[in-house]
């Protein structure tokens, strides 16, 4: 852990990581999830989910501001004692683990269904995990900087796709609006909201590394707003170009969307290039979760070194992914019927508990035992900053 203790990322990098994280795997699966019950009103569900996402972002920002640049786990341990803080920390870690697992599963399924049907998932998972472990070992600073480099690539490809799809937009796909009333629309809001926005609770683990002492409300809300907007555009395009039935039928509507691009019979078959969009975002979300999982474990257990955890965790994740999601039907059932509830408990419930504890224990007591918390230096700085 030593080498990361003083790792600093800029506020800008923090925002970009949040944007990419929010988009994450949602860009692939969100259209199917929202279309499942709201059909052609999917865009409406998505808009409501994105607004709720902002509320969630505000909650996370409230937590982040109270952390005083400590990781939530360290902060809790400092305030309510090692055991109780560690327990809440373990709940968070469990959530990161499960979330990383679903992302890995999604990634491998996407690659094997759309691109490389004959390649075994193990091979894809192994390589994907290897890259994540390598990224982790380079440290937060490096991968945050790379995200800053990749973000323009992502934006360019995304805009490229959006603009080239404009000729195919058919407004009548949206009608009738609210044919079955509001309930089916609201039904879709919930899974969209939790998978897209609540899961980004992982951003709290990045807080200790954000440079400066400024409040984090603005970057977090911006991240959520931009991420939500991009997801909204994707869902919107799916409705307008593909229509609800194709959106609901296909597992990966965004991929079909990319296939739809044909400009003058020569600019077509671009889906493989546009796949880079999804690879970037899914990779980063998984990386953030893996980072949170590994660094968090080290914090709970008070380890000095977290690198040695990477390979065991990688191995556990790969096996758990293969065992936990044996086939795509089971995975989708899990994702649509059970996972939203899991997320509600662990991504909304647990953070609210954290917030309550932080608010209750309030000021003054913070980082009294900075001696073995790895962020002692920041903690002290913060203390100096807040209590002059």
């Amino acid at each position, binding site marked *: 852990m030593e080498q990361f203790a003083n790792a600093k990322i800029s506020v800008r990098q923090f925002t970009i990581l949040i944007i990419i994280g929010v988009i994450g795997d949602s860009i692939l699966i969100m259209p199917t999830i929202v279309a499942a019950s709201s059909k052609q009103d999917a865009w409406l569900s998505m808009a409501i989910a994105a607004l709720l996402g902002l509320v969630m972002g505000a909650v996370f920002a409230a937590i982040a501001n109270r952390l005083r640049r400590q990781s939530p786990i360290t902060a809790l341990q400092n305030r309510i004692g090692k055991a109780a803080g560690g327990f809440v920390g373990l709940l968070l870690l469990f959530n990161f683990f499960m979330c990383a697992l679903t992302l890995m599963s999604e990634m491998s399924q996407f690659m094997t*269904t*759309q*691109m*490389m*049907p*004959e*390649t075994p998932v193990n091979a894809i998972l192994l390589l994907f995990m290897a890259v994540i472990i390598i990224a982790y070992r380079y440290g937060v600073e490096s991968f945050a900087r790379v995200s800053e480099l990749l973000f323009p690539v992502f934006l360019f490809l995304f805009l490229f796709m959006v603009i080239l799809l404009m000729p195919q937009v058919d407004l*009548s796909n949206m*009608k*009738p609006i*609210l*044919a*079955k009333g509001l309930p089916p629309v609201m039904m879709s809001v919930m899974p969209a909201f939790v998978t897209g926005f609540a899961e980004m609770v992982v951003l709290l683990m990045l807080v200790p590394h954000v440079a400066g002492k400024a409040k984090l409300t603005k970057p977090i809300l911006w991240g959520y707003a931009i991420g939500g907007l991009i997801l909204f555009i994707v869902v919107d395009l799916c409705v307008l170009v*593909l*229509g609800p*039935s*194709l959106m609901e*039928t296909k597992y990966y509507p965004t991929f*079909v969307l990319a*296939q*739809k691009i*044909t400009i003058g019979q020569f600019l077509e*078959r671009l889906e493989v290039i546009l796949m880079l969009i999804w690879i970037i975002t899914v990779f980063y979300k998984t990386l953030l979760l893996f980072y949170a999982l590994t660094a968090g474990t080290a914090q709970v257990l008070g380890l000095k070194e977290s690198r040695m955890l990477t390979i065991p965790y990688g191995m556990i994740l790969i096996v758990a992914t293969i065992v936990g999601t044996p086939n795509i039907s089971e995975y989708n059932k899990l994702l649509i019927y059970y996972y939203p509830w899991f997320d509600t408990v662990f991504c909304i419930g647990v953070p609210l508990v954290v917030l309550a504890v932080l608010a209750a224990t309030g000021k003054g007591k913070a980082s009294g035992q900075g001696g073995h918390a790895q962020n002692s230096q920041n903690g002290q700085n913060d203390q100096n900053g807040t209590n002059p």
Partner: protein
Amino acid sequence: MFYKMMVVLLCLLMLSGCWSRRELNELLIVLGIGFDWVDGEYLVSFQVVNPSEISAQKRGGERPPSTLYQGRGKTMLEAARSLTAEAPRKVYMGHLQLYVISEELARMGIGDFIDNALRDNEHRMDFKLVVARGMRAEDILKLYTPLDKLPTNSMLRSLETSEKNWAPTVSVTMDDVLKKLSADGTELALTGIKLIGSQEMAESKRNVETFLPQSRYRYKGIAAFKGDKLAGWLNETESKGYTDITDKLQSTSIEIPCKKDTFIGIEVTSSNSSIESKIVGGEPEFTIHIRSEGNIVERGCRDVDITDPATIEKLEREADEIIQGNAEAAVKRAKSMKSDFLGFGAQLNKDHPSVWKQVNKDWNDTYLPDLKIRYKIKMLIRKTGTTGNSTLK
């Protein structure tokens, strides 16, 4: 050092590329698929490219430009795989252009066997579907065509061109089929294709060695579906009405009779249409709007003075009547078939979802046959070519 070398060597061995790669020369590129139902099994005919025959550098000529491989099976995959017993490579669907369904199979229902095309990752959703009218699908794919060496290519382009420039055909892609078969209040319609001339001649290269190929394909009529089953064929007038109402048409030709057996030819250059639904006294009513623009391209009667604005107006009204006649024919057919291929129900759902909810159960059987439909048709003649009245006497 040794350790590093070993790692590098191992990498070379382990990471030598993807094992599911398929080089170009290992692909059997399928352009067209024909579906038939024979002895309780699918007979699937894959028309594949013969790469050496269509390459630009070498002049081929000894062999046909494409080869037909056939496989039988209870599923698509079984049929596709069974043909490897006679083909040197495995089929690749990424460039599929045309999907020909035999009429027999279309009447049995297409919902089940197109599932594979929706599911498979090699199929893009952009190929077109047609119905082999009154014949087997495999026969359509065994044809030497002039100009375009690849018959499917020729058929595809002809379908696309004729949809835009000649009324009675529609080019329907796979994703349209999915949309139509999933949606409420609208039915599928596919174009029919048939072979003219002798089958024997079609399969022989002599077919393209004459000025007028004895055997050729021709798109003929539109097959209207009810659910996923073919319910009947529209004739040419009804087909024209169909493409007119559903706004597929861009350009076509209208002939206005002026004397016995002579006509004035009008080229429609653009056409827009929409269906409007209204609720009058609780009952749905529809108005079909068609607005076309066109030019006079042929004056078959020399005594018609087309320099006179009044004549133009008169011709416009007569063209309106012809367009309306086509539309009425299509509507009449939809009513008698009880198949809403024109999409009135879907339009009602879009405009008045609450009304649609009450009527959608027995829309086709109860409401459709007695539907009140009005026509608002406006044809505008803009130009008369490069001349006014010619000086011919």
